[in-house]
């Protein structure tokens, strides 16, 4: 039988696809680092007798080719949309909500980690000989649960936070951010649409709730001037790989007070809490306090005599810390994931009026660095 045109089309199409892909693998320039994944991609494996014989070369080459497939973002996105359209979002880490919002799937209660971390907070209070404040921040998904499109597992942030607070047995002052957030008519504005963090507005709400609980003065929201940086696409955007999701503005709230920041990376005072040059980077969230640092000190010379706050925290406090500096002379932020010295040493050097442990619920349920607190 004579070959028909469609046979030619099939064969040539298939071979061309494989051939072009193979050629692109060989000749396309390769990136070493994936901004979206925040990781270095696999390096080209070196062929040695040993690596070949052990089969290691084969494995490494597969990892390498998988990391560097031409048009990787396109294919990853295509797959993400195919999965979404087939209805499987409930099995994924990220859910889609109304208004192009991407939120993390519900945090699962982790009895072991919860017990350990609450005990760590207790130990910290004992070591410092001071009652500490505990603030657990609910997740973005909880805030917009009724706006999630399609199937979603239930968010139990309220129950989990209440349970955690009950576990402290009043040995810590618990800060009820959740109720303050629940009172908002539009909870969506408390969190970014493409990132798991709270917005500046959300952080301000948490700050005011905390200050009210501490009977401290705090400026009204209207006192802040807001500048807007466009084009923010955060962590849930990267993780969902639904690339057509539009970017969103990122708000920087600023008052007249002059704040000075020293972080463990440079050890040089920086004027202002915003590192605006970092808005040009892929990860714009680092505009707040220069991203994650082991220890950050914010000084407000106008607040002399208003005391100091020590915050044991995760990245949510990158945005909260600057607000606290409006009410204290000094705010010291310590991230136990990077800071490995004893906290007691810090407290020997200076007296802290208030000690706050501030974590997102998701991190509090998974982070195992808190147990090293001394």
């Amino acid at each position, binding site marked *: *039988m004579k*070959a028909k045109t*469609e*046979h*030619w*089309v*099939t*064969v040539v*199409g*298939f*071979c061309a*696809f*494989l*051939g072009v*892909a*193979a050629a692109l*693998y060989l000749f396309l320039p390769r990136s070493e680092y994936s901004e*979206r*994944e*925040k*990781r270095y991609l696999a390096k080209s494996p070196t062929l040695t007798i040993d690596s*070949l*014989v052990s*089969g290691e070369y*084969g*494995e490494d*080459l*597969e*990892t390498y*080719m*998988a990391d560097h*497939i031409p048009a*990787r973002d396109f*294919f*990853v996105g*295509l*797959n*993400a949309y*195919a999965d979404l359209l*087939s*209805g*499987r*979002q*409930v*099995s994924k880490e990220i859910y889609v909500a109304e208004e192009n919002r991407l939120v993390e799937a519900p945090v699962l209660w982790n009895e072991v980690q919860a017990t350990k971390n609450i005990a760590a907070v207790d130990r910290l209070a004992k070591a410092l000989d001071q009652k500490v404040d505990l603030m657990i921040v609910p997740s973005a998904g909880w805030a917009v649960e009724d706006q999630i499109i399609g*199937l*979603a*597992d239930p968010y139990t942030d309220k129950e989990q936070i209440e349970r955690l607070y009950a576990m402290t047995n009043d040995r810590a002052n618990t800060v009820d951010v959740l109720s303050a957030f629940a009172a908002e008519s539009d909870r969506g504005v408390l969190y970014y649409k493409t990132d798991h963090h709270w917005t500046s507005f959300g952080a301000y709400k948490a700050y005011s709730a905390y200050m009210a609980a501490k009977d401290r003065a705090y400026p009204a929201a209207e006192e802040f001037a807001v500048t807007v940086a466009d084009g923010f696409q*955060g*962590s849930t955007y*990267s*993780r969902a*790989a639904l690339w057509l999701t539009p970017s969103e503005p990122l708000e920087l709230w600023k008052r007249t007070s002059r704040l000075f920041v020293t972080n463990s990376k440079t050890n040089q005072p920086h004027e202002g809490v915003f590192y605006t040059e970092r808005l040009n980077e892929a990860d714009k*969230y680092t505009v707040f306090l220069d*991203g*994650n640092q082991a220890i950050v000190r914010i000084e407000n010379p106008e607040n002399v005599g208003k005391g100091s706050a020590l915050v044991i925290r*995760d*990245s949510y406090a990158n945005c909260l810390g600057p607000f606290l500096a409006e009410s204290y002379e000094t705010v010291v932020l310590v991230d136990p*994931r990077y800071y490995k010295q004893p906290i007691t040493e810090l407290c020997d050097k200076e007296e802290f009026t208030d000690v706050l442990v501030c974590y997102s619920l998701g*991190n509090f349920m998974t982070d195992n660095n808190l147990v090293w607190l001394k």
Partner: protein
Amino acid sequence: MLFSSHVFLFAFLPSVLLVYYLSPRQIRIPVLLLWSLAFYGWGEPIYLFLMIGTIAINYVFGAWINTRQSKGSGAKGVLAAGVVTNLLILGFFKYAGFFVTQLKALLPFMAGVKAPQIALPIGISFYVFQSMSYLIDVYRHDAPVQKNVLTFGTYVTLFPQLIAGPIVRYSDVASQMTNRKESMEKFASGVQRFIIGLGKKLLLANPMGNVWELLQEQNGTAAAWVGIIAYTLQIYFDFSGYSDMAIGLGRMFGFEFLENFNYPYISATVTEFWRRWHISLSTWFKEYVYIPLGGNRKGLPRQIVNLLVVWGLTGFWHGASWNFLLWGLYYAVLLILEKLFLLKWLQKLPKFVGHLYSLLAVMLGWVLFFFEDMGQLGVFFAKLFTPTATNVEAVNLILGFGPLLLVSCVAATPLLKNWGDRLQNTKFIRYGKLAACGVIFFLCVAALASNSYNPFIYFRF
């Protein structure tokens, strides 16, 4: 190397196709042999020695049988020696650890012996069975002896069917090894078949495996049933997808392998199921074990014994663990019952009863097949048959995967194929099918690319 890997799709396959078609006809077999050996040695190069040894041993035994036969005597003994050698190879690499562990439990003096930890050489169950089929086919004059060791080596290692079948019997491909005709039409149909197989694996089997895994962590009777339905679908699409890819790749190089699956889940009896599931394996056992044992020609008691032997072996072939033996014997019992009276009963009942019974029997069979740990097996059976409420997460998973479960159920029947065959053979339809294959292939590459996409967000928190 797996077909659904980047190395295979974007390095191995383009290079073997290129070199194969650029080579003159005389050296195409050696080219296939060379690439097949590379394919085999990719994961565990050390087992290349085993492969080459297996080829050499069987080549020599084949020639020896042939010489003995031309001399008139002794061929049977040589055949027996050859078969035993193959079984020893398989026994050592696949079953030694299992047997030593069992003996240790039985015999106190073996307590000090360490069970050998042998990594199962990939595809050994398949290529040892192919080698045995060669020796038996030569002995029976079903196929001529292969004089050329390279051609014989190619038959044993041919990469499309090397690691997961179909088990190609030597008599079925003997003539194709030397006289086959590659053609544009065959190549094109091979491409389509390969893509359909890849689609079955990446777009249906993997998600079904995913939901089965997720549902095992949830509670409730419904979760257990939907879970085992998903596993039933996963194992079919995984295995038949692999066979489709093998058949498709074979066609790209001019080979025609026999079909390995024929919509097994539409069977009305378990007997029919085994005529439609992994056909090449059942045929192998029928041809080389069941019939030589006397099959059904020596009276009912003997037939029952034969069935037990064949199905015990079939079960054990799937893995060195008690549950596989149990799974095989479970089918022996069902097949014996069907032969004794069940088939007659089923014929009198409405057709759907037979389908329901077969599907249920097969699904419960897969439960035996999945759980290697007898304790877990019991727990899962209890879950299936004790009514308990299903939690909301499980309901969400069932609903979320619902569309894909439905698509998979339909794809496991010949509905789509029949519909496609009934369509008029117009240009529009033919190109439509081609376009569908293109879309499937793109989605497959997307699924493959996504496996490596792991946003590392630790630094973000």
